């Protein structure tokens, strides 16, 4: 395939889609599949066929639409009407009333059972209105298993432009201008990383896409890989071009079989269409992608551990420098980017770095995808501009706290992050502000807690995670996290003294300062942040113990 063919595919697919009068999208993101959307999809296809409407109504499985707890979801196009909690017996009625009689069924509309008013055009609901979708642009609209659908929505246009109209320096300049920062959590400027790898001269360089989304409560990367795998692939190929790499590895968690399957399929389709392999689109650029499946180790999200794991070893991190940009996979210069970072690339090339930079805050450009869960009315996948306040996310988009409870804290960054208490609800979510509050942006998991959550136990929960996930290579992390966990358990059992509390804080700072890799350095974060904002709860446990002891 060459440049012209790309345009041709887009036109042909467009004509094919236009033959249908109606389109029904069935959410086949993981959340909706868990609630049974595969059966709904089958049922819809069968019903449409049985009614002889196969030429009029197109039924498409799509990626995640967002409000996961209301699933299974189906979306009627072009009205953008979403029906929630769809059951098999509702299917004929929806087809009859919504499509044939053109009368939407109000009682089944999305957000019907809540304070948010249901809308015929669901995108008018506050849940969607406050969002800005770039990474998730086509997620929920196109069939993730069809390369044609991706091409028709503008896919691989950016790659074409890069290959024929831009030098690698120009691509890097655009990424730098966009102020895109690593979406895996640390927030390192992506453009600078690309430039560094580009500068090193080597016979072989690699691009690694980090899809080892280990944070509990974070499912952004999974949704992107499942909902629009071609977008990630396109970003990877562009990254390969910009850095001079000809081989790529995608490291996907073993817990995500669907993401693995869809990404594999995307690679096959791209290879068949000449978008992957030798002489991409007829240019002189070659790029090949391999998939590596993770085997369940949180530490493998750390870049040097990830490299060890791709090489087939235990996922032990190593000291940096040298950074992977210089000495990476098999000792070669290696670019490692998160799934979401790579998913931003195509849009930046298409619309320009400046456009992307304008969306976010002065220091962090663009949007961020969060997975919203916990004690919140609408949990699911959202994408907002950098700098959106936490209040807006929790109360406008997420619809507030259920059961008349009060907001207590939001936990970001998983076991490496911290808690943001109610007094900081107006914090503008970006990298610097969250660090100032003692948390981190992390990969984007956002768990909301209400008054019933015991913050000491929350700290203990995360510390238990770190004890289990510590690779055991360095002492501060291996032993330190265990001792911290033991002290926390002692506190929870009301057997600790004030002295223990002091020791806890001292040791936490010590582990943070002396651990080898990010896991150990960040492991005390949940503890330190709960200690900072909820010290009373710790004291309650300790004081009660003091009162019980005979003086």
């Amino acid at each position, binding site marked *: 395939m060459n440049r012209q063919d790309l345009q041709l595919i887009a036109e042909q697919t467009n004509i094919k889609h236009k033959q249908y009068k109606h389109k029904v999208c069935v959410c086949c993101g993981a*959340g909706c599949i868990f609630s049974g959307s595969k059966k709904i999809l089958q049922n819809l296809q069968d019903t449409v066929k049985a009614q002889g409407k196969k030429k009029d109504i197109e039924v498409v499985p799509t990626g995640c639409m967002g409000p996961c707890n209301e699933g299974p979801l189906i979306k009627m196009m072009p009205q953008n009407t979403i029906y929630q909690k769809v059951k098999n017996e509702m299917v004929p009625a929806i087809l009859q009333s919504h499509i044939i009689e053109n009368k939407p069924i109000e009682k089944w509309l999305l957000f019907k059972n809540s304070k948010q008013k249901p809308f015929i055009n669901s995108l008018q609901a506050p849940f969607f209105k406050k969002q800005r979708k770039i990474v998730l642009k086509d997620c929920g609209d196109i069939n993730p298993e069809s390369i044609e659908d991706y091409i028709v929505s503008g896919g691989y246009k950016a790659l074409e432009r890069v290959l024929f109209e831009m030098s690698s320096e120009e691509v890097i300049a655009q990424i730098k201008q966009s102020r895109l920062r690593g979406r895996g959590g640390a927030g390192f400027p992506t453009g600078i990383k690309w430039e560094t790898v580009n500068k090193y001269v080597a016979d072989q360089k690699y691009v690694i896409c980090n899809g080892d989304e280990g944070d*509990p409560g974070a499912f952004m990367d999974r949704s992107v890989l499942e909902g629009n795998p071609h977008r990630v692939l396109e970003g990877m190929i562009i990254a390969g071009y910009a850095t001079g790499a000809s081989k790529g590895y995608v490291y996907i968690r073993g817990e995500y079989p669907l993401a693995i399957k869809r990404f594999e399929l995307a690679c096959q389709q791209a290879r068949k269409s000449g978008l992957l392999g030798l002489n991409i689109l007829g240019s002189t650029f070659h790029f090949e992608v391999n998939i590596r499946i993770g085997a369940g180790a949180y530490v493998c999200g750390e870049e040097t551990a990830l490299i060890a794991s791709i090489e087939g070893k235990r996922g032990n991190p190593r000291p940096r420098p040298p950074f992977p940009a210089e000495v990476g996979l098999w000792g070669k210069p290696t670019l490692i980017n998160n799934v979401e970072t790579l998913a931003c690339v195509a849009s930046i090339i298409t619309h320009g770095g400046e456009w992307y930079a304008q969306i976010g805050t002065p220091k962090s450009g663009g949007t961020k995808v969060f997975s919203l*869960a916990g004690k919140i009315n609408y949990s699911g996948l959202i994408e907002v501009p950098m700098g959106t306040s936490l209040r807006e996310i929790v109360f406008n988009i997420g619809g507030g706290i259920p059961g008349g409870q009060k907001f207590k804290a939001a936990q970001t960054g998983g076991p490496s992050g911290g808690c943001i208490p109610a007094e900081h609800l107006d914090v503008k979510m970006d990298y610097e502000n969250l660090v100032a509050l003692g948390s981190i942006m992390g990969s984007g998991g956002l768990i909301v807690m209400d008054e019933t959550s015991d913050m000491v136990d929350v700290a203990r929960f995360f510390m238990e995670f770190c004890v289990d996930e510590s690779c055991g290579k360095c002492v501060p992390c291996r032993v330190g996290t265990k001792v911290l966990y033991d002290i926390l358990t002692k506190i929870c059992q009301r057997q600790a003294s004030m002295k223990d509390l002091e020791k806890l804080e001292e040791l936490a700072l010590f582990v943070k300062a002396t651990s080898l890799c990010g896991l150990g350095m960040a492991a005390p974060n949940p503890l330190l942040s709960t200690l900072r904002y909820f010290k009373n709860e710790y004291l309650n446990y300790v004081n009660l113990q003091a009162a019980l002891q005979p003086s």
Partner: protein
Amino acid sequence: MKPKRNLDREFSRTDPCVKLVIDKIEKENYRPDALIEILHVAQNAYGYLPMEVLSFIAKELRLPPSRVYATVTFYHLFSLKPRGDHTCLVCTGTACYVKGAQAILEELENKFHLKPGEVTCDKKLGLRTARCIEGCGLAPVVVVDEEVLSNVKPEEINDKVLAKMGVKV
């Protein structure tokens, strides 16, 4: 030179799964860096990783058995013990934790006298926990065999598991 195959004939004849493993090893061209990929295939074939399979893989890839064992025990997804006929997987991710996964786990532990990672004496049921299956919108989540149960309440979980096992409640 292609490595000489040290195949234990007895072992391969009694075990049809070994073919899947050999195919994968050949596909990966005996490269030691494909170890984790090969272990995935072996575990899918057997349901767990028997010791003799590990030494077989080590021989084929010309790796020290200690390296293979060290890799297997490092990663959570690999298991050295057989699984039960049915598996009950309780998600203990943050969202499930906040919504009460601990109570569900305790309920199951008490009813079936199991700790996570164990299998009942009759090998009927295995209890496991997961760090997060990322079904956070539906928390708390329990996966029984392949079926995902969402918004699980502690009082109903035992009956649901028993029903899945075919035991009349």
